[in-house]
């Protein structure tokens, strides 16, 4: 009997706690929602395209090396057979 009498009180307390937590989370959420400031310096002068170009050049160089290697290996394979 004693237990059953206690339960509503606990429930009320949990509800209160939940309400407080919800309120807090609402406030903290409001902080999170403020727009994230991105680093726009890289983009402001349009020179990011130079970086893209450089990376693409390096990538192309690597691919050309791979093709060169592949041809060399093919030649060797033919010599062996």
């Amino acid at each position: 009997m004693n237990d059953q009498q206690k339960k509503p009180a606990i429930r009320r307390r949990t509800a209160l706690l939940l309400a407080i937590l919800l309120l807090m989370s609402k406030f903290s959420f409001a902080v999170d929602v403020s727009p994230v400031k991105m680093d726009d310096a890289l983009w402001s002068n349009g020179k990011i395209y130079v970086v893209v170009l450089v990376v693409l050049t390096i990538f192309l160089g690597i691919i050309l090396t791979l093709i060169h290697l592949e041809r060399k290996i093919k030649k060797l394979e033919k010599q062996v057979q």
Partner: protein
Amino acid sequence: MRQHWWKALCVLLLAYTVIAGLMMPVPPLPIIHESIRNLFFHVPMWFTMMILFVFGFCYGIRYLIKGNLKDDIYSVQFIIVGLIFGSMGMVTGMEWAKYTWGQPWSNDPKQLGAALSMLIYFAYFALRGAIPDEEKKAKIAAVYSIFAFALMIPFIWILPSLTDSLHPGSGGNSGFNTYDLDNELRKVFYPAVIGWFLLGLWITSLFIRMKLLKQRELLKEIKAAQATGQPLE
């Protein structure tokens, strides 16, 4: 594998990854900011390593079943190239962590798991180097590579996701899907994974052909010995 179309596909996908990956608008995220673009470069390194290790594992098993030394060569080369990609994943991860988590190494469970499974795979080569007999070496190494692969899965996939990790998708952290609210990142991420994997496959195929050329005398000897039923001295 001697066809060329998939190599052209690899170049196309990676060119798309570089161009779109650097220039597409990205979702504004706290702390990570523009560095979310590393998703197209750092993460596919690990994916490529995993898939190459799967191939290495399968060829290891194939060697144990069929006993053809060629399969052993395939298995080793897949593991070598997998480790190269894994090392690049490790270095790029530390570089990224320096600017987002504050330090290159923070004993994050996923960092530790990846380091451990890479060490296990490095030990694979120590083991190989210690056995002079070619067939014994191949057999023991193939068995070991099964253990190494079986250990990698809990180390990289299961254990980090059970504990708190700085990596997304672990512990209380939100996964990659919550970053990608409008599915824009996926449009570059998936082609990037395929492109980088195909590059890994291409490099591995060259490694394998080189090794087959180098070992052709040995392969011939073993074949002849197997045909006459005489053991190789």
